């Protein structure tokens, strides 16, 4: 965003991603069509294509929906997330071709406007099995269109990431509509249990992964709430999960809890804060990447910059500003290190404001070492008591 917009910022990973995407989609379409034509030579070509593109789009949507929770559960899947937008646009295009063929085949050339026909040609008659399914598909396609049309970084910047993200969370509405579209559409006719089984398996996979990941997120949040210093009675500001100490700084975690070049996440002032340890220093920034609100605290310091795990956007840990020519900025937090513990002031500094990194001085390093020894001593003691 700090540089001029281009159509697509191509790089080697994106090209690889798109090659796999296009190859997979082409394989799906060709295999479905050729096999259908071989097994059922009298099939109408348009309907064969309607089915190929429809099932292809639905499968691709399942894959896209699984990427998010998979990455929450295992960061090794993050490469699948990197260029997910291209998969989304492809999914929309497959759905669009499916819809265009449906309108031409089933609705055009009649006594009614073909688009209007989608709504008026499936009257409701009180029977569950004849719930009009085509309008479900129509509205799902509108949502997929909105998402595909706003997939460029121009829209991320001009809508701002939270608005953009809420718009793109409509994908769950689209998914629900498409499950209904398929359930009350083709499955009412195609009697094979395989069709029912495939959709059911897809549903269980998508919902199962999401619920698992969501539960883990809740668990992560409650973990920060359960740290000893947070169990003290909190102030009226309920969003602050760690309560301020006398001088307003909050005991966030131990220095030893943070791995080198990585961060620990706590919740302060209503949002997650990422506390990084690097080169003997501690810095805290807002956990929210300005690009797409990726979780910076799950990123890593690479070449001196906090790097977002989603798309590799970078920020200097002390200023929260992207290195030039990029212009992204995030709020920073004032930090102190005392007795091997990290204290963070819950009040964020305006985005891009330099906050002096706290140095892990000799004493705190020693304390850190001491606390480790202390721990082992207490373990020894514990062992002794057990004996």
């Amino acid at each position, binding site marked *: 965003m700090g540089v*001029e917009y281009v159509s*697509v910022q191509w790089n080697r990973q994106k090209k690889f991603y798109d090659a796999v995407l296009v190859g997979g989609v082409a394989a799906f379409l060709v295999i479905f069509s050729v096999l259908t034509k071989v097994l059922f030579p009298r099939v109408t070509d348009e309907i064969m294509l309607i089915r190929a593109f429809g099932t292809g789009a639905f499968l691709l949507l399942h894959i896209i929906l699984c990427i998010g929770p998979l990455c929450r559960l295992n960061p090794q899947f993050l490469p699948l997330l990197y260029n997910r937008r291209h998969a989304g646009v492809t999914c929309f295009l497959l759905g669009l071709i499916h819809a265009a063929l449906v309108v031409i085949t089933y609705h055009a050339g009649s006594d009614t406007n073909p688009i209007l026909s989608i709504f008026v040609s499936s009257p409701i008659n009180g029977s569950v099995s004849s719930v009009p399914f085509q309008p479900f598909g129509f509205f799902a396609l509108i949502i997929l269109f909105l998402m595909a049309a706003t997939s460029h970084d121009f*829209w991320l910047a001009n809508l*701002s990431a939270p608005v953009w993200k809420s718009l793109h969370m409509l994908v769950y509405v689209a998914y629900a509509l498409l499950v209904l579209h398929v359930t009350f559409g083709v499955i009412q006719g195609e009697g094979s249990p395989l069709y029912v089984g495939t959709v059911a398996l897809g549903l269980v996979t998508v919902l199962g992964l999401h619920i698992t990941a969501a539960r883990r997120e809740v668990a992560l949040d409650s973990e920060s709430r359960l740290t000893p210093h947070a169990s003290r009675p909190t102030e009226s500001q309920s969003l602050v999960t760690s309560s301020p100490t006398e001088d307003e700084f909050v005991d966030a975690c131990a220095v030893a809890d943070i791995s080198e070049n990585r961060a620990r996440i706590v919740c302060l002032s209503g949002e997650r804060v990422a506390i990084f340890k690097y080169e003997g220093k501690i810095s805290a920034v807002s956990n929210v990447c300005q690009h797409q609100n990726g979780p910076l605290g799950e990123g890593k310091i690479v070449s001196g910059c906090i790097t977002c795990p989603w798309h590799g956007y970078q920020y200097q840990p002390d200023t929260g500003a992207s290195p030039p020519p990029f212009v992204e900025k995030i709020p920073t937090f004032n930090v102190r290190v005392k007795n091997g513990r990290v204290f963070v002031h819950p009040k964020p500094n*305006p985005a891009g404001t330099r906050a002096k990194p706290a140095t892990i001085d000799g004493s705190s390093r020693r304390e850190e070492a001491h606390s480790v020894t202390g721990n082992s001593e207490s373990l020894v003691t514990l062992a002794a008591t057990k004996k």
Partner: protein
Amino acid sequence: MIAAAFLIALGIYLACGLVFALPFVLVGAKRIDPHAAQGPWGFRLLIIPGVMALWPLLLRRWATGVKEPPEECNAHRRAARKGVAP
């Protein structure tokens, strides 16, 4: 009847969007977002469908003379704006 009215309204909305999109991608985009100033043709074409869908928002920004994309609204940025930390 309702469906017909809905589709006509949708059609008019998108047609207005298309009419707005042409001047917007040529002139308006760089007015509200400096990074769009040198955007290549591919970029301009790519944003047309989105402009057709969200044209009232962009029209308002352009008309009120907004020069920069908006700053995102999240809890930290809101809290930071309230005052400076010690």
